[in-house]
């Protein structure tokens, strides 16, 4: 999401507009998506909160859960987002600046609606957390080890981790299975894989090998390259339980 429209980038850069939010939300609802995540990528770097009017419009038409991410830096802002009809809130950069935010949100709303998004880059020494990834000019390495941060986020009350593997995002060569396996070892709350989906077998791989609880994708769905009903049919054929 940027300025009320749906955009998609490659490796978190060079975002282009791919559609109207309500049209896309309705399309995914009807195609059988199990959950939608809306990232307001312009929100965090510019230090402003999400424009909430669209959340209510989306909530009116969606009968599946959805999560809102981007620029939520306080319990009050989270309350507004949830009161507008979102199921979950996802925090990323603001939680890195102020990890107590995770504790505060979890205490107020319960762990089940507090998602911590982690943008992670593979480096020589392992995996490192990135911050402000929505803006090329401000995007930076935090020197935090991804595994340590995932452990800390859970201890503070995160109810779900979405791991965006940045070296894979938007390039469609498959999820970063090695990294997801490493995080799965330490992640005892639901883990959602993000970044890299390009073909149906990538989804099968990430469920069977990394044992994630859900797989998130954008490009292949926005473009229509992988229709959700076909994907679900394929996953079912591969022995993975999916909602009919």
């Amino acid at each position, binding site marked *: 999401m940027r300025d009320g429209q749906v955009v998609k980038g490659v490796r978190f850069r060079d975002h282009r507009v791919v559609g109207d939010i309500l049209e896309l939300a309705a399309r995914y609802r009807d195609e059988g998506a199990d959950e939608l995540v809306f990232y307001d990528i312009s929100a965090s770097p510019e230090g402003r909160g999400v424009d909430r009017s669209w959340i209510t419009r989306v909530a009116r038409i969606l009968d*599946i859960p959805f999560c809102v991410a981007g620029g939520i830096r306080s319990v009050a802002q989270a309350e507004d987002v949830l009161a507008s009809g979102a199921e979950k809130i996802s925090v990323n950069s603001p939680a890195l600046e102020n990890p107590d935010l995770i504790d505060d949100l979890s205490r107020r709303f319960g*762990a089940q609606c507090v998602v911590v998004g982690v943008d992670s880059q593979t480096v020589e020494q392992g995996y490192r957390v990135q911050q402000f990834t929505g803006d090329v000019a401000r995007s930076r390495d935090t020197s935090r080890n991804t595994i340590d941060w995932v452990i800390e986020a859970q201890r503070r009350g995160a109810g779900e981790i979405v791991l965006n593997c940045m070296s894979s995002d938007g390039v469609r060569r498959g999820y970063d299975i090695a990294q997801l396996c490493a995080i799965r070892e330490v992640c005892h709350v639901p883990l959602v894989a993000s970044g890299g989906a390009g073909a149906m077998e990538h989804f099968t791989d990430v469920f069977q090998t990394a*044992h994630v609880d859900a797989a998130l994708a954008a490009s292949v769905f926005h473009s229509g390259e992988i229709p959700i009903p076909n994907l679900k049919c394929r996953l079912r054929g591969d022995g993975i339980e999916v909602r009919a």
Partner: protein
Amino acid sequence: MNPAQVVIVANGGANIASLQFALARLDVASTVSADSAQIRAASHVILPGVGAAADGMARLRQSGLDALIPTLQQPVLGICLGMQLLFEASQEGDARCLGIIPGAAARFAPAKTRPVPHMGWNTLDILKPCALLAGLTDGDYAYFVHSFALDVSAATVASTAYGADFSACVQWRNFYGAQFHPERSAAVGARLLKNFLAIR
């Protein structure tokens, strides 16, 4: 028949909007209230709830609704935490609940293959005929988000499994419950809400 006068109990939950929107999609208007007289006058009462059991009960006690709700005669539907509050107790914060239905909510035992909270789409296993479940069949998917659950008991009308079986839907006299979120369970959830509103 008069249109349903649906009152959603204002209980500090942050997600009441999504429930109201789900009712609106069924062309049913609803009022959010913590007022005893308004709740007593409703044709249908919904007790939602997101958050911790102890907090939810504390808010009900503050507004005196802990005494009112067990005396209601019209159909009452507890959703998620709201369903758990209908029972006697919850391990969550060692909360004493409304005590309408025998039983207590217990935390899921963590296991390597089963993260807690339990979040996601699970299939229903219908155990008993119940007006709430009209038109629903075994294998229908509903959306669950919770860390505590009720064992299958005399009140259970549908179950699902996460490790062990637990109560997905319950009925005890005029009190109904869904552990899952009908407002976010696509067509299955819409049908359950419609069924509830048809109960008189």
